[in-house]
Structures are given as structure tokens and as C-alpha cells.
């Protein structure tokens, strides 16, 4: 059996595509504690994202981190600064395998996998497809379970 090739049409802009300057500077316009979208992520995930104290253990243990554009601990830092935009444009939440390694290891007891899910939810609830079901290559030879999980995670 050949390697599974899933063509993932990247509709979202990866943060590498952001313009210089946009990437390196961030202006806090309002108290992140009062940001509605941060609050939404807190509500969906049930996690107090502000209690992360940036030890980095989630990132050091994450099996997918090397393929991400934002490290798992940085996800919390972006949230703590109220920068949900960058997270919505990032690949990281989609690359997260939901393996729960970070959740098990976080010294604070934060469920980072749930936060990743919440960020994905924020997009999916807008009827957003991360993967286009009609454009999955070699659809016929993929094991059906892979396709099902794929759609569960990447489509509304």
C-alpha cells in the first residue's frame, strides 16, 4: 500500500505569508482578559488559558511540534495577549494530532488538546473546511476510517 497522500488545500494563510512587520510587532488594543474570542475559546475548551505560566513542557513533548508553525506553548501566549487572529491563520491547531501528550504532562493541569480543538471549532463553526472533501487525492485507496476521522477534524 502506498503512502496516504491527502491533498490539503490550504485556504488559511500560514503565518509565514504574513507581511514583515505584521509578524514582528503586536499592539495590545484591549485587555486580553476582556477579548470575546479569547473568552469563547475558554468557554469551548473549559480551560483557563491565563493560568499557563509558559514552562514549555507541552511543546517539548509534542510529537507534532516540529511540523507546526507556532509551538504549543506559544499558542497560550498568543491567547494571553488576545491575538486570536494569528492563531486562526496558523497551521498548528490543524496539525495537532489530539494525542493528549501535552494535556497529560502540563504541570498546571491544562488541557491544551482541548484548547487546540476550541481554536479549530472557532473556524469550523463558520462553516469553514480545512480540507476540501471533493479534493482529497486517491480517495479510493484511503482506508475509510482515515477519511472519516479526517472529515471529523477538518470539516464542520
Amino acid at each position: 500500500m502506498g503512502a496516504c497522500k491527502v491533498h490539503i488545500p490550504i485556504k488559511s494563510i500560514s503565518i509565514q505569508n504574513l507581511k514583515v512587520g505584521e509578524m514582528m510587532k503586536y499592539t495590545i488594543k484591549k485587555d486580553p482578559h476582556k477579548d470575546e474570542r479569547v473568552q469563547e475559546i475558554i468557554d469551548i475548551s473549559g480551560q483557563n488559558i491565563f493560568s499557563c505560566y509558559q514552562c514549555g513542557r507541552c511543546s517539548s513533548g509534542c510529537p507534532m511540534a516540529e511540523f507546526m508553525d507556532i509551538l504549543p506553548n506559544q499558542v497560550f501566549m498568543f491567547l494571553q495577549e488576545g491575538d486570536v487572529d494569528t492563531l486562526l491563520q496558523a497551521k498548528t491547531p490543524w496539525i495537532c494530532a489530539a494525542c493528549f501528550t501535552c494535556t497529560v504532562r502540563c504541570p498546571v493541569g491544562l488541557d491544551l488538546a482541548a484548547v487546540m480543538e476550541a481554536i479549530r471549532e472557532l473556524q469550523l463553526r463558520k462553516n469553514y473546511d480545512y480540507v476540501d472533501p471533493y479534493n482529497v487525492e486517491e480517495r479510493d485507496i484511503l482506508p475509510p476510517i482515515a477519511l472519516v476521522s479526517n472529515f471529523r477534524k477538518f470539516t464542520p
Partner: protein
Amino acid sequence: MAMKRIGVFICHCGRNIAGTVDVKKVAEEIGKREDVALATTYIFMCSEPGQKLIEESVKKYNLDGVVVANCSPTLHEKTMRNAAARGGLNPYRVEIANIREWAAWPHEDNPEAATRKAIRIINATIEKLKANASLEPIEVPVVRRALVIGGGVAGIQAALDLADAGIETILVEREPSIGGNMFRLSETFPTLDCPQCILTPKMNDVAQHPNIKLYTYSEVESVEGFMGNFKVKIRKKATYVDWDKCTGCGECLRVCPINVDSEFDLRMAKRKAIYIANEQAVPLKALIDENTCIRLQFEKKVKEGKIKPKKNVKICSKCADVCEPNAIHFQNNEEIVEEEVGSIIVATGFEVMPAEAFPELGGKYPDVLNSLQFERLLAPSGPTAGIPRRPSDGKVPESIAFVHCVGSRDPQSGVPYCSRICCMYTIKQAMLVKHALPSTAVYDFYIDIRSNGKGYEEFYHRAKEEYGVNFIRGKVSKIYKVGDKYRVQGVDTLTGRIVEVDVDMVILATAAKGSEGVKDLAKKLRIPYDEWGWLKETHLKLKPLETPVGGVFIAGAAQFVKDITDSVSQGSGAAAKAMALLSKPQLEKEPLLAKVDPEICAGCGRCKDQCAYGAISIDPVRHVAVVNEALCEGCGACSANCPTTAIQVVNFKKGQIIRAVDVLAEVF
């Protein structure tokens, strides 16, 4: 009489010495000397069997002198002297030959040379020892009273402990009230109790304790004498008010027309020219600031002849007019009092750098404050009743930024060390802002959070998890005004981006330093200090409360900035040290002091000029130098400068030293 039956004990120090020096060979060589009755080795001379070996050998071989070849005399000279004394030998007939630090350690790579050097060091020590005299310790009487300088929480604790132990204690505080910096605080980490509530009982105890004599608004003028017998002059500064009569009613404050910045409130509030330090001051007494009072300024100018008093012009005396008990007399009542004490505790505390010292961080703006000023704005008893307001316009801030490590950990523009308490108090202040103003946004810029005390890390987590404080990791580099706001230009090193935020107020956690003027005080006491004004302890780990001057101890933030818990512990610790000293009826002093041979002394006085302890005087009648044994520390500076060798330190006579040097230099 030179010694003839010397015992030499060579220590292996495990492998420290024996791993390099051939101790057996050393014993063999030394044993060949005619004046040596016994030369032996042992694995640890400092162990009990090692000491027993000395004790028994003294008896068995009837030794008249002992050399122990081991480590530095600072470690075990006393141990070995006591061991020999138990065997019946005068302890001053024992010398240490340091073959560990001088031979074994520096010549690890050349055991043969190390062994040769060890033999030579021992031979030189024997030559020195042979002319040692038997001596008895000198006894000096002790004044059973103590002086505590600085009435912050550390000094207060020390004074109370001493007084409770029945020791008459003098507490000198330079401000009009005791309490120190703790009394300025809003609430205290990590328990958030009210500092005034927990400190006032202690302050009142000080004022009422029958064994405590309190001098506030006073400073130490001079210190003379030595451990057990200090003579201290204290300057009580002019208050222009009779404190025996003043009831602290505050009527005078209400009528005085002059407003100036309050020292206690660190410019966050005004006070009058006649003032009481704060509402809960101990003692609660009014005093007049001679530099701002209209009347005193007028009188001064008249005295200096700068103005001529016109007739029938009434100069302000509003305060005196309303003072019921007639306490205000406008007379300069400065006074010098003298006290004798046996021990001194220095607890002069610390200060934080002013915001103005950091113009790049907006220190010149009115709404950019240092942390201690902000404590006043957060204090329920403070000028804004605990609701912080902008000094510039009285507005309640909608956003506040805190900046950690301002001047700390920054040898380029501040101090090299971490100021240790600022992470915690900044977190506390951030929490208190949230208490007072729940909707105000709080940004806390830090390099890393140092929360290493009991309950401290938990306190930090509470701020993060429950209080809604925004923590951003990175040092702020610039703060400037944009319209009505202050733009904080920082960085988030965790996401790797510059972070900018506009806020209404900025609080700088500026570096701590030793109290202003502490260096002058330290000079009077002859105790060492560092360039930042921290008083130096004798040993950072094992003697943190001691100073090189016998009988003088340090406590609290004067040694290095610390939190209240540690300051109080050190206050009690220093008091215990002083008690140990003062509980003896007599003090024993090493008899290794300078002695003058009046037959040779020419009375030139060179020795007197050299003595750092003021122990030498010239007898005007006999015209010879005289040593005050109680003051002499036996340092030998005098002896080195005497042109006639008339003054010499006992058991360090010139002949002894020269013979030892001859051996070391191998010029027989």
C-alpha cells in the same frame, strides 16, 4: 626559655593532604630535629581521636610546645589549642602549620615539591613557636545595654527581643517615627495582611517597654570604644516643639499655611511645615521643618543679617496660637546625648531608586512612579484611600503597566544583582489594583518571575489564574507619552514579537540599595560595606549577622534587601547574638596584643598614627607609647612602623618572624 620538647602532628586530611604530600616522609624528617620530641601523623587531626592524640601526647611526652600541620588556622586553631590545653599545655604554645592550602592544594601536580614545601613550612613554624610565651586571656568588663540603629521592622524586633530578655536597649531612628518602609506598604505578600495592623502593636510595645529608650528624629553622631564597652553620642535633631507637652492632637497641622511634599508619602501627598510623620506615628508628636516654616526662615534670615525685622509686623505663629498645651516653642532644641552600651545592632534598611533615574522609561512623567510611591496610592490609609489615581490629573487609571527589574540585573545602568523582593511586590500590587479597580487592565512586564519563598509561587499563580493580570515576558526598553497615555514599548520573548500597549499609568520596580547615608554610619562603626551601600557580613553563609567589629551586628534589609519574614528573623537573630555577648559578666579577649618596651620607645608616635583602632596614646609625662589593651586588635600595623622595634605584638616578635622567614627562604 626556648622549647625543647615539641610535638608535631601531621594531618592527612583524608586525601586532601596525604594525596599529595608524603606525610610519612614529612614526619620522618621533622622527627630528626633535636627540639622535637614527637612527630606523628593521623588521618583527621580535627576528629575526636585526633584531638585526643594531642591531649594524651602532651601528657605522655611532657611536651612544651605543639605544631599541628593541617589546614588554615581560621578553621581549627582553636580546636587544637583547646586539645593541648586539656592535656595541660598553655594554649598559646600551639601553632598551626598550614600545609593544606599552602603545600598540598597548590602543588597537586608535583607531590615531591609539595612534600619539600610542607617540611619547610613546619620547620618555619617550629622556629616561630619556640619563642612563644605562655599567655592568659585578657578579661574586659561588659556594659549590659544594647543599641539598635534603625527603627524598621528588623530594628523593632531586635529591640523588643533584647528588652524582653531584660537588657536595657536604646533604639535610634532618624525619622520622626519608627516603622521603616514596612509602614509605608499597602498590604503584604504573600498573605495580604495589613502592615499597619501587624506593625502598630509592635511599635507601641517599643514605646511602652520599660527597657527601651527610644530616640526618634535622632542620629548616631560618633561611636567610640570596643566590644562590651561602646560610648555612643546621639544627636537629637531640632523639633522646635516640646515633645513632653505635645499630645499629638494635630490642631497645629490644620492652621499652618505652608504645604510641602510629605517624606512619608514619598511626594504622593502634602504635609504642613509643622507635621506629624503619619497618623499612626510612634511617637505621635509634631515637629517643625525649619526649612519651610515661615517663622523659622524669617528668624534665620534676621540672624544672618539678611533682613531687618520691621516693627509691628506679626510673623506667623499660627500653630503656637492654637496649641493648647503650649508645646510649640520655636527654640532650636537640638541636643547631643551620650549612651554606653555593650553591643550594637545596625538595622538601617534599604531604599529603592527613584523613577527619575530612568528617563528612558518615562521616569520624568508624573504618572510614572516607583514601586514604593505606588504602595502609598494602594494603601487604604494613604492619600488616595487605596484607590490609585493618576498624580497628574487625579483620574482613576483604566490601564496600568508594571515593569520589573528596573535598574536591577543591569550592571550597565543600575546594579548587577536581583533586588529580590520586586517580583513579589509587583505581583501583589497588580492584584491590589484588581481589588480596587476590577475593570482596570493590568500588564506586567517581567524577565522571569522570582518567587522563591514560602507561599510565593502559589501567590503568583493566583495572580495569573484568578486576578486577570496580563503577564508578558520581556524587558521594556522605552516608555513615552502619546496624547494622554503612556506608550510602553516591550517585547514578548515567548512569541518573539515586539509588544506595544498604551496605558494610563506605569509603575517601575526600581532596584533596591542600602539606605542613604549608611556609608557614613558604617565608617563611624568601622564596619565594611559594598559599593551599593549593603553592610557586609563576616561570612555570607555562616556569620550573616556578624561584622568584623566585635559586638557590632547587622540585621534586616541593611545587610541586603529582603522581605519582612527574613528581616524579622534577622532582627531576632542579631538580638540573640547580642544577648549571648551581654550575658557574660566579663569578656575574654585574645592576649595577642601589642606591647611597648618603654626602655626603647622614643615616643615618636608613628605607631599611634598607624593604629586603626585608636588603641595607642603617647604618655605625656614619660613620653612613651601606651597601648589600651581593650582596644588593641593585635593587627601589628604599629609594630611594622616602629623605627626602634619598641612596640611588638606578643608571640609575633620580630625575632620570631625573621627566624621563620629565614627557614622559608632557606638562608641559614
